[in-house]
């Protein structure tokens, strides 16, 4: 049964581009969003109908002003209060309150008093503003940034379905139920939403709060509580903002936005609301007979409910025309205003301002629009025709401001591209938006190749082919690097590489361009490529040979083996001795091919090849992952120029090379850099075997590599999202905690350093102490929220006394009670410049001799050497100067090994 459910979830997940677990978590929120939108689309027609029918159109501007005042203030107050509540409780309690108040509204509507309709109008407006925000608030808190990109689209789609269903329901049952009873239907929908949210994933912040609650009693300083509170509150925002690629855009863009964005939005909204007001008034001013004919129930008054029966009725064109204009114009204005939220400004700024823009600005603009209508119609007695012209003037003003804002935006975006401040891996701008394409196009015409390349790198993230024409024009660019990059981008769709570009690029002066062109062409027309490649293989021009080999490599393996017979390969091998370009191309070909015939030949080539050829072979090996090339790759780790490539290639082999890499790390005869590269390859291999190997190695075996191992584990967590066993990580932390306490005890018990050697030992201890602190934070980040831990680390290291205490409190609050008991004293005992910390307590050796014994036997080879050298100079610690110096030197030399010249 369970597996059946999983199967279903997997299939459904694939359908919407989500993992099964994500779909299961997202579904309640999708249903909740659909329910809320359905409720809104049931309520709003009922509200409009009741108000227009019972109160009358003349008072519509007044209620709009009331909505602006009450809505703006409520939204502000609500957003302030909301930060004090746990998200899940806030959302569920608020929605329950809304559902029950809707039932109350239904009862009050029975009173048939005018103020009830005013209150109901305002309440429905508030409901519309707050309820959707609440669902999104939950969604934001329940999913991290990476999940949000996939899940939010589905949630939004749920909303659309809800809106459609709500509209259909209202259209079908309004006449039957009556407008007043639609309110009860909406209340039931909201109650259903609360039920759905009961199955939704709890917001991440809530989980942290529960963790904090258990240890609140240990809070020592008020400042710490404040820090934790702030930390908790802003954590979600900070996570979205930290390392945001467009952080640096904030100042220039926001300057523009602050100056013009808010005003623009306001102007756009006023224009929109003016038009809406004109439309509603126009509709309401339709001949009374028409309105009477729609029946006594107010629900029938809403044009959305009764549009079909009204078609062809006299007076309708008057009502329908401005309404249609309002609808279309409103949509276009809304679309433009929403574009503001797609600006490449920091996520945090967006989130902070979105609620304000959506609620306060919106309602204020509505109120202002109503006031303007009142002023011109009641004060100046202008007709609605003049008001319509005025609306157009407002719209023109909005367009003018939008153009200015756009100019500021374009300028900021261009500068960001010029200075390469946009991190491509974290780019969140929709590259497929036409407006973004318009921004990038001028950069492609820049006379700075660096900028053009950067813009091309940006375009690589676009999923549509909207850039193809612009990129194709760069195929004739004087810089080969740009031609190459443009070709790489277009190569994914070889059909776009038509004549005359094909011929031009096949004869390009740059061999890589030729090779790329041949590869792209081979996908489109293999027969033509075969013919051309066989011809080019015999060419005197080495660039033609390189291109031919690349073209053949893109063909199926069997075809390739037939074409590249031993005779041809012999000739190529002979030519490769004189030409590195041919050698590199052939080596790449053979290594990526990895057939027995190729491997036998490549071992001959690699025996005496240049760096260029070896690098090409490494790239090929990374693709084929041929076991026969492993030994050669391992030997490359000891060669400086080949190390990085070999490390990356070995990492791509994954789990099968873990044992081999372990052996390299343990091999003391290998250069330190090669052993460190093996650690890095393990970390990059993204396998659980590698993770186990690194964890087992931490604090065991030969010392000196712990920083690299920790860095590798941290990379596994950050880049590959791997989870870590808490027990092992806690053990490693406890090891470092003890180390910190021993360092503190040593520095306290030894006399002040008096000579160069003891000063060096003291400095080495201090450095070790800082390193151990850092390592504890890295380890904490492996099992807790890494971003939050990183922030705590920054506060701990750089903050003043209060901030440092607050950071410590945060750490204590995220770990369990037992861990906190030993971790806090250890971190407190760590040195901090200018801070006087408490004495270390606990069972540690107290005498200088015992403490020095710990260091002369330390796993860390450098600290051991420093301790050995310093021991004879420290009274009561013992040691013969000459013997100690010799031991220290031997220890260092053993550690440095091949590094010594």
């Amino acid at each position, binding site marked *: 049964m369970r597996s059946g459910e999983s199967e279903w979830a997997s299939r459904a997940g694939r359908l919407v581009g989500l993992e099964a677990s994500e779909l299961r978590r997202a579904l309640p929120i999708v249903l909740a969003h659909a329910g809320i939108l359905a409720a809104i689309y049931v309520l709003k027609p009922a509200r409009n109908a009741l108000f227009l029918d019972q109160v009358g159109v003349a008072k519509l501007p007044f209620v709009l002003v009331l909505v602006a005042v009450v809505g703006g203030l409520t939204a502000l107050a609500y957003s302030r209060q909301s930060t004090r509540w746990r998200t899940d409780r806030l959302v569920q309690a608020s929605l329950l309150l809304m559902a029950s108040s809707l039932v109350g509204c239904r009862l009050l509507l029975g009173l048939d008093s005018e103020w009830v309709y005013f209150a109901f109008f305002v309440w429905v407006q508030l409901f519309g503003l707050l309820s959707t925000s609440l669902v999104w608030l939950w969604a934001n808190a329940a999913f991290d940034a990476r999940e949000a990109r996939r899940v939010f689209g589905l949630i939004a789609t749920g909303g659309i379905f809800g809106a459609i269903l709500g509209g259909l329901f209202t259209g079908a049952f309004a006449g039957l139920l009556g407008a007043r009873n639609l309110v009860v239907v909406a209340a039931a929908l909201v109650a259903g939403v609360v039920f759905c949210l009961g199955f939704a994933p709890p917001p991440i912040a809530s989980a942290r709060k529960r963790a904090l609650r258990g240890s609140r009693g240990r809070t020592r300083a008020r400042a710490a509580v404040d820090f934790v509170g702030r930390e908790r509150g802003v954590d979600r925002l900070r996570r979205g903002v930290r390392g945001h690629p467009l952080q640096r855009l904030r100042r220039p863009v926001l300057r523009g936005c602050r100056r013009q964005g808010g005003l623009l939005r306001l102007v756009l909204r006023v224009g929109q609301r003016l038009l809406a007001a004109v439309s509603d008034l126009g509709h309401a001013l339709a001949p009374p007979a028409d309105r009477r004919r729609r029946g006594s129930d107010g629900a029938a008054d809403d044009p959305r409910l009764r549009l079909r029966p009204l078609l062809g009725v006299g007076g309708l064109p008057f009502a329908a025309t401005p309404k249609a204009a309002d609808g279309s114009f409103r949509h276009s204005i809304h679309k433009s205003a929403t574009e503001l939220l797609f600006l490449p400004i920091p996520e945090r700024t967006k989130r902070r301002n979105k609620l304000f823009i959506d609620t306060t600005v919106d309602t204020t603009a509505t109120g202002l629009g109503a006031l303007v209508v009142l002023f011109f119609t009641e004060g100046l007695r202008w007709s609605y025709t003049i008001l319509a012209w005025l609306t157009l003037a407002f719209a023109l003003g909005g367009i003018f401001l939008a153009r200015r804002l756009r100019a500021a935006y374009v300028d900021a975006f261009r500068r960001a591209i010029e200075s390469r401040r946009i991190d491509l891996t974290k780019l969140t701008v929709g590259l497929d938006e036409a407006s973004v394409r318009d921004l990038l196009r001028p950069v492609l015409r820049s006379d700075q190749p660096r900028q053009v390349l950067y813009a091309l790198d940006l375009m690589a993230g676009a999923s549509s082919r909207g850039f193809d024409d612009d990129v194709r024009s760069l195929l004739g660019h004087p810089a080969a690097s740009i031609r190459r990059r443009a070709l790489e981008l277009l190569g994914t769709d070889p059909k776009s590489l038509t004549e005359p570009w094909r011929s031009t690029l096949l004869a390009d002066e740059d061999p890589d361009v030729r090779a790329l062109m041949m590869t792209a062409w081979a996908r489109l027309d293999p027969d033509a490529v075969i013919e051309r490649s066989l011809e080019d293989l015999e060419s005197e021009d080495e660039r033609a040979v390189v291109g031919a080999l690349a073209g053949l490599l893109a063909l199926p393996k069997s075809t390739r083996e037939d074409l590249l017979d031993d005779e041809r390969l012999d000739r190529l091998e002979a030519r490769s001795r004189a030409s590195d370009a041919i050698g590199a191309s052939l080596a790449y070909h053979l290594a990526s091919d990895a057939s027995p015939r190729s491997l036998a030949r490549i071992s001959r080539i690699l025996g005496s090849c240049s760096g260029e050829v070896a690098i090409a072979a490494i790239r090929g090996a990374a693709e084929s992952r041929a076991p026969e090339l492993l030994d050669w790759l391992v030997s490359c780790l000891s060669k400086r120029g080949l190390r990085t490539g070999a490390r990356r290639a070995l990492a791509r082999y994954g789990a099968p090379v873990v044992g081999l890499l372990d052996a390299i790390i343990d091999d003391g005869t290998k250069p*330190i*850099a090669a052993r460190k590269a093996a650690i890095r390859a393990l970390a990059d291999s993204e396998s659980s075997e590698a993770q186990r190997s690194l964890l087992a190695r931490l604090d065991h075996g030969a010392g000196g590599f712990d920083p690299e191992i920790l860095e590798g584990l941290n990379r596994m967590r950050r880049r590959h999202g791997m989870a870590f066993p808490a027990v092992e990580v806690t053990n490693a932390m406890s090891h470092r905690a003890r180390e910190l306490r021993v360092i503190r005890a040593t520095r306290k018990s030894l006399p002040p350093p008096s000579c160069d050697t003891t000063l060096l030992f003291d*400095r080495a201890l201090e450095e070790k102490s800082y390193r151990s602190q850092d390592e504890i934070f890295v380890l904490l980040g492996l099992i807790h929220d890494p971003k939050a831990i990183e922030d705590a680390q920054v506060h701990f290291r750089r903050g003043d006394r209060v901030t440092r205490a607050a950071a410590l409190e945060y750490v204590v609050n995220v770990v369990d009670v037992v861990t906190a008991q030993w971790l806090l004293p250890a971190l407190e005992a760590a040195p901090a410049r200018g801070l006087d910390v408490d004495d270390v307590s606990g069972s540690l050796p107290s005498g200088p001799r015992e403490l020095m014994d710990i260091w002369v036997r330390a796993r860390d080879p450098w600290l051991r050497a*420093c301790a050995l050298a310093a021991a004879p100079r420290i009274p009561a610690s013992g040691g013969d100067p000459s013997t100690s110096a010799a031991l220290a030197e031997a220890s260092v030399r053993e550690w*440095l090994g091949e590094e010594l*010249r």
Partner: protein
Amino acid sequence: MRTIIEKVIFLQNVDVFSHVLTEQLAYVAAIAEEVVWDRDQKIYAEDDPSDAMYLVLEGRVRLHRGEQTVTEAGPKEAFGTWALFDDEPRVAAATAVERTEALRVARSDFLDVLADNVRVTEGILKAMVRRLRALGRVVRNP
């Protein structure tokens, strides 16, 4: 013949190495070779290619342009440091004032150490940034 630890003790006094961890300085010490010059022996001439930096262990070295002395480097003082980072020719000549022992760090070896040990690079960059900031402060408040 000095031990690695002794070399590290000297190297930590060099300005550009002030932010490099002592453990990482051991890598630099491993490539530092001891050299000895007699009195008045020319170490390098003006406009010679820059290929190494020196750290005086004992003795004194005069840095001069023609006959005009620019400065003198005594024990624990370094000269020719920038040779590690660029290949501009020497701006001054160096001559031993008396019998002098020094550590020589060759540029090519040093670049190899940087390539293999990113933390050494990190420490050097930190020192350089601090120096630049200090210069910036001087420019702003002369």
